[in-house]
């Protein structure tokens, strides 16, 4: 993490995402978002629900196409998934339930056409890295949610991407598991030196893990502010009880509070309109 070079790994320029609802309204999910992510940096995206942070993540990974604007990865435009450079970790693990753990970890390499033996070696190494080597032959259904998500991280790492895009990876887990996995993720990243873009709802998680926290505004999603967390890595559990941490977290809370309030009020008035429209129609 110390060797962050000046050339950005990922450049987002004026990305706008708009789509039509079934009623024919145009919804602007992202409005001219621009952002640079440096190599080896950990960037969190945080904001009220519906602010387009997950959409932005999917656009970065080429899983969705933006309406306008440009995303470049190592100077090349992103137009579709680039599994050699970008790995995904989704909120709901998305392991293949009919495959064993080890075979889940190697599936990306299988898609790439790597030979059986070589990919098994890679997979075993990464499974060890997340501490689940002993579960190689289990099925996902036999593992807890936290373990499944570690497998999903191992799966993404085994493809050796430069960038890891994580969409609320610990969102479905309980607070304790979440904290421990966060620390573990930090340790793993310390070893692998990946660039991370991380979508989260948790203020503490964002502050604890990130180099920078990008705060997004309610719909249409724009970047409201970017906070920098100046804390050496690997982050220690003690950091989460320090005053620096609390100050950052409170600052983040104030920034977000207005946005969440605005988003919730907009949602409520939107619901009111929908009811009215229904009555009239």
């Amino acid at each position, binding site marked *: 993490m110390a060797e962050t070079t000046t050339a950005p790994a990922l450049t987002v320029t004026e990305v706008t995402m708009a789509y039509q609802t079934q009623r024919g309204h145009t919804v602007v999910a992202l409005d001219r978002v621009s952002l640079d992510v440096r190599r080896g940096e950990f960037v969190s995206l945080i904001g009220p629900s519906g602010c387009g942070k997950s959409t932005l993540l999917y656009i970065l990974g080429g899983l969705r196409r933006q309406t306008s604007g440009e995303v470049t990865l190592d100077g090349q435009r992103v137009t579709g998934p680039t599994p050699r450079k970008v790995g995904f970790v989704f909120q709901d693990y998305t392991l293949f339930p009919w*495959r064993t753990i080890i075979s889940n970890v190697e599936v990306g390499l299988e898609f790439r056409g790597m030979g059986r033996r070589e990919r098994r070696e890679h997979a075993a190494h990464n499974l060890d890295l997340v501490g689940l080597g002993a579960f190689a032959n289990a099925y996902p259904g036999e593992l807890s949610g936290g373990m499944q998500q570690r497998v999903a991280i191992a799966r993404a790492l085994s493809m050796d991407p430069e960038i890891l895009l994580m969409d609320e990876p610990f969102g479905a887990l309980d607070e304790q598991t979440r904290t421990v996995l966060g620390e573990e993720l930090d340790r793993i990243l310390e070893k692998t030196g990946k660039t991370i873009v991380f979508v989260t709802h948790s203020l503490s998680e964002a502050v604890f893990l990130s180099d920078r926290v990008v705060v997004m505004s309610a719909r249409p999603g724009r970047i409201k502010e970017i906070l920098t967390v100046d804390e050496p890595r690997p982050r220690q559990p003690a950091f989460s009880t320090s005053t620096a941490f609390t100050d950052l977290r409170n600052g983040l809370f104030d920034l977000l509070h207005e946005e969440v309030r605005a988003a919730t009020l907009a949602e409520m008035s939107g619901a009111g309109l929908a009811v009215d429209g229904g009555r009239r129609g």
Partner: protein
Amino acid sequence: MSTDQTVRPPAGIAVSGRGAGPAPASRARWWRPSRTTWGILAVLAVWLVAWELTVRTGLISSTFAAAPSEVAVAMVELAGDGNVRSAFAAAIGMFVVAFAIAAVAGVLMGAAMGLSRIAYRVFHPVILGLFSTPKMIFIPIFILVAGFGVASKISYGAVSGFFPVAVTVTAGVRMVDRRLLLAARSMGASRPQTLRSVVVPGSLPTVMAALWYGMKHALLGVLIMELFASQEGIGHYIGLYTSTFRTDRVFALVLGLALFAILLGSLWRWQEKRLSRWRGTHG
């Protein structure tokens, strides 16, 4: 508590039976029936005895129902009759061909409708409509086109089996978890790779269920046609024995077919369990 009590007596019988001699003891080693199995056997025994008694005491006229013992004798008799045996074999053969056609055509059609939105829009309403129509009303047309022989039975069985397979496979393919498809795409899976690694295993349980429905309907189709167009074959014998009041033989034939269907079902369930072992690990 109360279920425990009701299940216990047969288990007690098993224990005393095992102690009775060395032969049953060695038998018990490879066949260890569960309490449920004993329960089913007990119900079956009670039912058979009741049936035997109602017929023997004249509560039901023996013109309309044969006692189990008579049916058993008739079964042995018929099993010794070469004509009946070959009629049985022919019916099973026709069923196998009909099911094979229904399975291949149904899976292909279902996969097409599940994967392609255009195919779904074009074919699904038609197929669903035909599936909901009782196919019996088309029997005269089948006979008209394919005659009274093997062709009409196989084609009617195949058509009967095709619809449930196609409709269920479509649902299975469309229900494959979108999140898994997205994950595969993010890992750079090509379309054939996605099919092989996500769509096929993800829809397999439903496809197995689809084939089971298809099997049931294909068998039903062949047998219905046997009864309608019966110059030979099982249907002919059932018709013959019914009109000559040989209810014991009618029952024997029907029971033979039922046993075949049950055997098919057990084989199928065993196979399904073997194929989807990972599902047993859930919960």
